[in-house]
């Protein structure tokens, strides 16, 4: 097989540039294989994250020719023979080194979502749920936390200043998964608007386009959440009922306990 050429971004927080590499090709190679071969033969300190190499763990996210993708699921035969291939780190997060970025933003946001809080068990001590009632939540549970949706979302990709008030599509999926869970009793609707910035999303569906798990992030998670917010916040009848019942969202429920350190 002919050699394969690839331009890989190398650098750190202070800057960097694309570096050209040429390595021998193998049948069925994916981009991650080429990066590994570069490591083994040319650049042993080339930084890259990976684990499963089968699209299940979401570690090897990068921008391939500018598109957010998993390196392990991008076959080399999807490029034209003379096509220039570039691999660069996720743009939305600060670079640590080469293809590795600091994705701690995501783990911090995860801590701010109130935990699952189940209702009491059935009288016979079981939990009965039906397949048709859980399927829409199972779709959200397919998320592998590759953060490609976070990377592509222009609310934070191009606006660093929005990061404190916007949690991004990954966490809208998480909010929707909890809100639609048949057993959950926590209420996160006001929180989605006030703390996670759901209102910033103007449903351009970029997140849905890049999701390697084909989760319909916009249609199935974000829009239903937006509808619930509208009903809650702006529907006068719902507002009146809520006043009569005196129910208010428990914003603090499930907040992480302070670290014991």
């Amino acid at each position, binding site marked *: 097989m002919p050699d394969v050429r690839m331009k890989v971004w190398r650098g750190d927080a202070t800057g960097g540039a694309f570096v050209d590499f040429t390595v021998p090709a193998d049948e069925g190679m994916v981009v991650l294989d080429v990066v590994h071969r570069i490591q083994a033969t040319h650049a042993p300190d080339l930084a890259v994250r990976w684990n499963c190499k089968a699209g299940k763990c979401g570690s090897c996210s990068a921008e391939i020719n500018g598109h957010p993708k998993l390196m392990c699921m991008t076959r080399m035969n999807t490029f034209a023979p003379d096509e220039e291939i570039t691999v660069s780190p996720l743009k939305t997060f600060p670079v640590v080194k080469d293809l590795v970025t600091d994705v701690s933003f995501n783990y911090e946001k995860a*801590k701010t979502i109130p935990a699952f809080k189940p209702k009491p068990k059935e009288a016979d001590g079981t939990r009965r749920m039906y397949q048709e009632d859980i399927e829409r939540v199972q779709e959200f549970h397919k998320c592998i936390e590759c953060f490609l949706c976070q990377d592509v979302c222009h609310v934070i990709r191009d606006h660093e200043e929005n990061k404190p008030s916007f949690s991004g599509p990954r966490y809208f999926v998480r909010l929707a998964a909890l809100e639609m869970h048949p057993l959950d009793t926590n209420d996160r609707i006001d929180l989605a608007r006030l703390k996670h910035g759901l209102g910033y999303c103007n449903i351009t569906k970029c997140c849905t386009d890049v999701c390697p798990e084909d989760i319909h992030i916009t249609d199935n998670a974000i829009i239903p959440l937006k509808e619930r917010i509208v009903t809650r916040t702006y529907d006068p009848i719902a507002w009146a009922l809520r006043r009569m019942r005196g129910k208010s969202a428990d914003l603090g429920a499930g907040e992480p306990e302070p670290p014991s350190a």
Partner: protein
Amino acid sequence: MAEYETHDFDVVVIGAGGAGLRAAIEASAMGVKTALVCKSLLGKAHTVMAEGGIAAAMGNVWKEDNWKVHFRDTMRGGKLLNNWRMAQLHAQEAPDRVLELEEWGALFDRTNDGLILQRDFGGHRYARLAHVGDRTGLEMIRTLQDHAVHRGIDVFMECTLYRLLTDDGRISGAFGYWRQSGKFVLFRAKAIVLATGGVGKSWKITSNSWEYTGDGHAMALDAGADLMDMEMTQFHPTGMVWPTSVRGILVTEGVRGDGGTLKNSKGDRFMFRYVPDFFRAETADTEEEADRWYEDKRNNRRTPDLLPRDEVARAINTEVKAGRGSPHGGVFLDIASRRSSDYIKRRLPSMYHQFMELADVDITKTAMEVGPTLHYIMGGVRVDADSAQSTVPGLFAAGEVAAGMHGANRLGGNSLSDLLVFGRRAGLYAAEYAKRVPQAPRVDDRQVDAAATGMLAPFERREGGENPYAVHADLIAAMQELVGIIRTKSELEEAITRIHAMRERARRAGVTGSRIYNPGWHLALDLLTMLTVSEAVAMSALARQESRGGHTRDDYPRPDPQWGKKNVILRRRDGELSLVTEPLPEVPAELRPLIGEDKPTGKVALEPVAAAGAKE
């Protein structure tokens, strides 16, 4: 003096897969100060790749199922080399651990009456695996991860611990480095839970990721703990074989659990010719009975496609060697001709996706090509069955890094349940132990300085040293060739000789660049760990002169009743590895009738055995 940051905890859990997360949750719930340290980002550990399900005798699908049947299946699957007490605790506690995940938000597939659905898997008499399509591990790790995060457990991500520290024979801490910055970090701890997973990265064809370098095995050995039955490695029968770049990636046993069957190049369902006597009474001997079994388990016996993994892997190996393999050196796994396209996509979505994306194969239309891949190690750190404590006070181990539970061969689905049951136990007993330790642990500066000096040595050699990637390539080739599915004395001796030579090269490894996120440096350090573990496997394999479960000797092709009563123990004293055998704890009289009287006998299936009704 090395520069490092210091953290103080009661319990430090190393590894954040299922066992580590479950241990940390339990320790934290016990009210002790708990840290969770992992090499990758949180949620990326190997558990995420588990596909088929969690074995637990909940009896949701078959009322006849209970812990006793699960115990029996586990012991027989392990060729009776299991620690009986671990197998008992596991079978008894697994249902509660699964239901607990549901309390924490997991959503398993459902039965028609709204309970957790259970699927068929190899070696399990009844459909027993709680699952979510073929991405059960993802559901499990994310549920545990979210639960741990909301408990406020301190998580140290991308942090590699490299040496355990001891004070007068007791655990006092662990020392390692941050992957991102390369800076050193010291944890002072009263108790440590090893949940570091397995060793597969020392083989060429493996389903394991880069993390599986056997850190826990090697650290425990160096700290004075016993390793047990390290020769017991599991080759999963169905890994992808083509294209080359994906060779070894797992194809779930769920394919066969859901109706898929193995065929050779002649279209022959060859597994009917490889049923050993030990399993003959419970295995179908005609294709018709095997096919009926999926629907009616009361009146039919299990398909031989779902014999335990060691039997199936050897059979595939034999078929390929006999020239009846598939074009790329595997055999065929066919579900396309046996189940509808909708069913396959619903039950096995990630397999469909994996073959479509990586191999251009539509598994709803054509058969997959599969072959054995190093998947798991049954051997590991020797632990007390109830408390998960190793032979070193304060050092606990759970999950794949621990030995005993699975004996000579692990049944599919028994790993995720193992992680939950013994992860919880390790966390519980580590916390109790830490509460009993009166004083803060003392750290010996000499141990820390020695570790730090060794870890930085590759930077001094720079380009002049050995390329760690080249040494690793040689190691995985040697282990694949010499310590594979079928082993023999001369090859194992050759492996040990080569490992010694490679260790000399690894000690001369040089790395370039800085300490910041430097994979070459990380590999140079991991290499020494992998070589330790590889030597342990080869030495133990050489010692056990019989064939049993995951350990097959060409020169000793039968199970030996005497060896069936022995564990192979490795320990390091004054720098030298020593090997002894010790008696396997005897199954108490009241449990013996559950297992059945017959023992594994006869030659293992190095060649087809003539089964009644089989066709050739």
